[in-house]
Structure formats: C-alpha cells, structure tokens
C-alpha cells in the first residue's frame, strides 16, 4: 500500500497510567495507532484492555487524578496535540475531534433540553449565536431522523436509540475531522443497534469523517470498519485491514476472540474460549502479557516482549510465534 497515506490521527508510544492508592494501573503501555483520513478504524479488545483510555487520551479527557498520560505523541493531522493548554484543547474538542460514548442513557444531561445540548457545541465552535445554532440543531435532528420539534424535550422523554441519535447529532454537528465512537451500540437492543449502525455508516459516508470505532463486537467490525487494531493490556497486538484480521488471523489472542463466538452456522460446535482472565493491570505479567492465557506460550514469551512482525506492509502481530519465515503461512488452528 501507499506509504504516503494521509493520517488524521497518529498516536505514537502512548503510555497512560492511573495512579490509584491500590497501585499504578498501567492502562496503556506504548500504544501506536494510525488512523487514515476518511477511513473507519476499529479497535477491539476485552474489558479493561485500555480502549476507552486511549480514546480519552486523544481528547485529553482522562480523569485526573488518578489518570496521567506518561508518554507519547498524539498527532492530529500532523500536529502534536498532547499537552495543549485547556483553552486550545477546548477548541479541538467537539470541533475537530468529537466523541460518542457507550451509554446514551447517561451521556446526556438530564436537566437540559436536547436541542440546547446540541446547540451548545455549535455555539462554542461556530460564530452565529444561539439562534443560528438552534437552526442548525434542527437540521442535525432531521438528519439523524428525529423530528426537530422534539428538540424541546428532555432526555428522559427519549428512548435509548433516540438518545444515541441525539448524541450522534451532537458529535457530528461541527463536522469533525475525526469521530471517536466508544462502543456506541453496546447498550442498545439488536434491532436498535442495527438502526444506529446503519445511520452512522450513512453519515460517515455523507460527511466523509474519519472514525475510530471502539467495540468488542467483531460483527460490528466486520460490518463497518476498514482497518482493525486488536488491543490487549494497553498495546496493539495485531493490526491490519479486515482481510488481514478476519481471514489471516495471526495472534493467538485474536484467534481466541473469534473462537469464543458461537457459530451461527454450526450451533452444535463447542465454544473454545480463551482460558483465564485479563491480567491485573497493576501487575502485568512480564514478557508478553498474554502468555499466561496463551495455548502456544513458549519460554521466551514470559521473558521478552515480542517485536512487531509484519505480514505485509500494514498487517503486523506482536507475538513470538512468528518470524519472517512463518508469518506468511500462519501457524494457528483454523477456527471452525
């Protein structure tokens, strides 16, 4: 692929810690992430892998204390935005980068009308005042399929799916360059989830927005993402495009994720879950953090952290199983 890809977001060697009284939670440990302009980038991983932390670091919204970004570079369109002053950061938030949170039930202010909440972003980032902002709000509401006259209502009068639409309208109101969606449909019902996903897909295409889609649902990835990064214990352990990840799975962890899913076609097949649990983030295992759960673990795995091993110019894994020779062939059992 073209090495001069245009990046909207480039995270390099991000390290984030939560310094709690029970110890230091190493939530993100040297994470690299490149998101290309106009592409939808999926980030999958189990609970506690550091997905939300990564997303919040981009907007500098990590709860502090206890959270601290220890190291790393976060470039937005080539410009480092890490450590910007609050004032400058406020200009970026909601304008260049906006975010949709997991739970629509709690991410709207219960005592403000929804149109005021949407108009607020517009007011802060665009000149034109309140009237103008409301006008634009109504356009946004129509766009996400809500009648503008319901803008005067409060969040509790809306159902979950409608609230998530409001949140989407809010996130897209200023036509951000990058939209970060942190598990936007996890809290929703299957049918509503399908509605919202379809809506997001359409809007993304319409606005040509780049997107970071955080999820633990590989089905969603398959459906709307271009690129996928698999995160484990605060690091990207496998990265590639959909074909790389879905059809040429290399990392045992990624493989485990697939094997844990019930197979729609063969309902009798026994599930093959990854054994064990996510490691304690205050006390990560040495070497590859996945090795205690890995069926293929070797001596080296507990000693050294594996280097990135590229299968092609973008698909890489961090796993000792692979070297230049066997990476192309692959070595894992095929999933049923």
């Amino acid at each position: 692929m073209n090495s001069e890809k245009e990046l909207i977001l480039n995270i390099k060697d991000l390290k984030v810690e939560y310094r709690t009284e029970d110890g230091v939670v190493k939530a993100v440990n040297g994470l690299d992430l490149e998101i290309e302009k106009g592409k939808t980038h999926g980030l999958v991983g189990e609970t506690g892998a550091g997905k939300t932390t990564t997303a919040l670091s981009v907007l500098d919204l990590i709860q502090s204390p206890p959270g601290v970004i220890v190291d790393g570079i976060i470039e937005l369109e080539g410009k480092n935005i890490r450590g910007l002053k609050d004032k400058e950061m406020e200009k970026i938030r909601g304008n260049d980068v906006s975010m949709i949170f997991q739970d629509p039930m709690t991410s709207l202010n219960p005592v403000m009308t929804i149109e005021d909440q949407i108009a607020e972003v517009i007011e802060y980032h665009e000149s034109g005042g309140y009237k103008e902002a409301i006008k634009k709000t109504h356009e946004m509401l129509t766009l996400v399929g809500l009648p503008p006259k319901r803008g005067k209502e409060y969040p509790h009068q809306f159902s979950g799916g409608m609230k998530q639409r409001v949140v989407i309208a809010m996130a897209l109101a200023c036509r951000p360059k990058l939209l970060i969606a942190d598990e936007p449909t996890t809290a929703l019902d299957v049918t509503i989830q399908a509605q919202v996903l379809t809506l997001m897909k359409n809007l993304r295409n319409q606005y040509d927005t780049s997107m970071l889609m955080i999820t633990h649902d590989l089905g969603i990835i398959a459906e709307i993402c271009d690129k996928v990064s698999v995160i484990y214990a605060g690091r990207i352990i496998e990265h590639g495009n959909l074909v790389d990840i879905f059809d040429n799975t290399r990392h045992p962890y990624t493989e485990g994720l697939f094997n844990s899913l019930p197979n729609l076609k063969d309902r009798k097949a026994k599930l093959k879950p990854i054994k064990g649990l996510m490691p304690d983030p205050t006390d990560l295992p040495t070497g590859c953090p996945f090795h205690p759960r890995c069926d293929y673990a070797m001596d080296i795995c507990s000693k050294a952290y594996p280097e990135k091993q590229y299968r092609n110019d973008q698909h890489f894994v961090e796993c000792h199983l692979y070297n230049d020779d066997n990476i192309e062939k692959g070595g894992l059992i095929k999933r049923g």
Partner: protein
Amino acid sequence: MWKYIFRRFISLIPVIIGVTFIVFLIMNMAPGDPVKSILGEQASPEAIEELREELGLNDNVLIQYKNYFLGLLRGDMGTSYKTKVGVAEEIGARLPTTAKLAVIAILIAIILSIPLGILAAVKQNTWLDSLTMFIALLGVSIPVFWLGLMLLLFFSLKLGWFPVSGASTWQSFILPGVTLGFLSMAAIARVTRSSMLEVIRQDYIRTARSKGVPYKRIITKHALRNALIPTITVAGLQIGTLLGGSVLTETVFGLPGIGRLMIQSIQGRDIPMVLGCIIVFTVAFSIVNLIVDIIYAFVDPRIKNQYS
C-alpha cells in the same frame, strides 16, 4: 399539579389529628398544671379550683379533646389559657417574624453554603476543600447563643450597625438570620459538595467536556443544576429545623417568634397555644416540603411528569 397539591393537603389531615391528639394526651399526662402556672407560687386553693372550672379543665380529657377538635373543625383554634387571647390571633401576630427569620436564615445559609460546597468539590482534597468544610462544620458545633451574643457584641455594641433586639426593621433580622443560617450552612454545604462530586463524575459531564465547553461553564451550567436536587432537599429540611429550632435565636435577639411562644406555652402548660403552634409548624413544614417538591419539578424535568 393542582390535584397533587390538593392530595398533599388532604394527607395532612390525619397527621394533624394525630399530632393534636397525642400532644393533648401528653400535655394532660405531663405533671404541671396550667392553672398553677398562671396563678403562680401564691395561688390559693379556691383560686385554683375556680380557674380550673373556668378553663374547663375539670372535664374528662377526651371530652376536652372533642371540644377542642370540634372547634378546630369550625376553624377555631381555641383561646390561650394564660392570656385569654385567641390562639389564632396570638400566632398570627408572631408568625411573620418567625417566617421572616426562617427565610432570611435559609437565604443566608444558601448564599454562603452553595459556593462553599462547589468550591470544596471542585478543589477536592486540597486545603481549600478542608478549609471550607471546616468552616461549614463550625456552623453545627458553635452553640447558637454564643454565636448570637458574639455577633451582638461586635456588630451591635461595637459597630452599632444592627439593633440589639426587636423585629420592627429588616436590619433586626440580619444578625439572627446569620446566627441561625450559620447552623444550616454546614448541612447544605456538605450535601452540595458531595452531590457536586457525584455529578462531576457523571458521563454527561464528560460529554459536555468532549464538546469543548469550558470547565467553568460546565460547573455552572451542567453540574450545578443537577447537583441542586439533594441540596434543595436538605435546604427544605433545614427550613423545618429552622422553624422549630429558632427558640434560642429568638430569645437572644428578642424576636417575638413562634418558637419562643411555643416553648413558653409548653412551660406554662398552655395547651391550646401549644397545639396551635404545633399545627402551624406541621402545616408550615408540609408547605415547605411541597414547595421543595415543586422546585424539584422545575429543576429536574424528570420529576415533573410525576405530578401530572
């Protein structure tokens, strides 16, 4: 909404019946005799007997209560044993003072405590937090009369800014208001702090931040209104406490309020007056609660439709 308000008042009726009846019984069971209190140390046996007869105290307690209650139904709260003045009239004369005192006190408390609470929450775990909470705590632990007299000594005697006693001008209410308000300040500041802390951890605050809203605006516009609900509850409860707990303040500042009247009446076993005061307190308390509930509805749209 009106139906709701109406229902609330209807539910007050059993409480008033219960309260008056129990107080009636208590006052009758309690040692101490209104007649001897009125006639004092020099009372002669004949005078005592005559006055008992005159006040109807020789009747059976239940008959006395029945008479009282029938009067109450007619809107007659009875006549004070001691002053022979109608209870309603006497209370009516003092109610404005107590009401003004309570309102001013609660206003002062709110004006002082909400900023303190916010400050403490925003600066959580810093010395500012500790300091503000310490000031707030002083409020509950300083004896009322001590604070009252100190204020009098300083502001009235030394500076001559406020009158020492009386209730004729608005200035008369400032020092008592501060004294009493200081008491409630602690409670209100503390809830404000903790509910503010709770609110600023909420997801929608993070949402607001992700929209690029400056932090100060987030506190004032997004967080405060959400944090206000528990604050209002406590402030409402405090008004109740203030209404009743104002005795010492009223005494120190010579304010002719109901708190003092009630204590005097209890001490003098002036049963109709005690009952009158308690009815007024009960009604006032539930009106305050009702107002609090209505304010809720304005602050929080989620609550509004519960009243429909």
